[in-house]
């Protein structure tokens, strides 16, 4: 629809807009920006079990956040209709590194050679989607937050625990990128 829409939205526009979510949620109702709490709320809502971690009043504490999450879904849908992402303008070094790992299709937002229903039961597809997702959910719950809660809201609030968590995020991410992916994809 808007063919002139800049892609990607420049970092100096996107970053401040994302940062403004933190005060917005505080102003709306003293809510802390943090998306992975929703995993805990969803487990409490969906899984009938007597585990202490899921014994909280998820409706009272988590309704606003689950609605926020629904909003992300709707926003993603709207964005893809109104101004769909074009071919990514990736750095040449990354393109060549990924090609060396054997990825040929670098279009779209996720690599189709790894993320598709047909690759789900291959080793690289299973590890990328199922093992990766499991680690994200386990790690975020263990660390008490994910990129939004620690790397954005926590760091902005000068919280030392969040700095430790972000160091962990990068340690893990670098290990996967430089040690695991070459082994997994080749």
């Amino acid at each position, binding site marked *: 629809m808007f063919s002139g829409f800049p892609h990607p939205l420049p970092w100096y526009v996107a970053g401040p807009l994302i940062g403004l979510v933190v005060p917005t949620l505080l102003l709306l109702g003293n809510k802390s920006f943090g998306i992975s709490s929703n995993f805990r709320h969803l487990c409490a809502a969906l899984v009938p079990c007597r585990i202490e971690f899921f014994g909280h009043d998820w409706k009272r504490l988590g309704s606003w956040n689950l609605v926020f*999450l629904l909003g992300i879904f709707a926003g*993603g849908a709207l964005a893809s209709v109104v101004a769909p992402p074009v071919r990514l303008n990736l750095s040449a070094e990354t393109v060549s590194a990924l090609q060396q790992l054997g990825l040929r299709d670098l279009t779209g937002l996720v690599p189709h050679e790894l993320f598709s229903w047909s690759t789900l039961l291959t080793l690289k597809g299973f590890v990328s989607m199922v093992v990766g997702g*499991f680690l994200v959910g386990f790690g975020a719950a263990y660390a008490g937050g994910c990129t939004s809660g620690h790397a954005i809201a926590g760091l902005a609030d000068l919280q030392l625990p969040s700095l430790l968590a972000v160091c962990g995020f990068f340690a893990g991410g670098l290990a996967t990128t430089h040690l695991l992916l070459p082994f997994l994809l080749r």
Partner: protein
Amino acid sequence: MMLFPYFLAGSFFGIVIVEAEVVSWFRIQEMFRFQSFHMYGIIGTAVLTAAVSLLILKKFGVRSLDGEPVATSPKTLGSGARYLVGGSIFGLGWALTGACPGPMVGLIGSGAPIMLVPLAAALAGTLAYGCCRPNLPH
């Protein structure tokens, strides 16, 4: 509680992360390979904007719509193990899925239903943490 404003805030966030390609597996690879400033610029300016906003809100004792003064609750440090170990586990997964929790949902909305798989796996991971929690160092 009025929930609709949170829906709007979430939609706004969802639009920005899709349009800025924060949800892209490839952008996350660029970041972890230090081959583009894009993601660092976004995270850096997001933190800066949020930090300045917090300072202003607290300095002037601004009240939220429910009437309470705006406040954040400090996280307990403990031994720090949960942040370093939990964070590292999260990071291992983040570079695999190329999407942290928000982007997973944004991607599903933007037409990548395959991301329901990592999302379901993440719920299983959180469930597993809930089960192991008493036996983990925090």
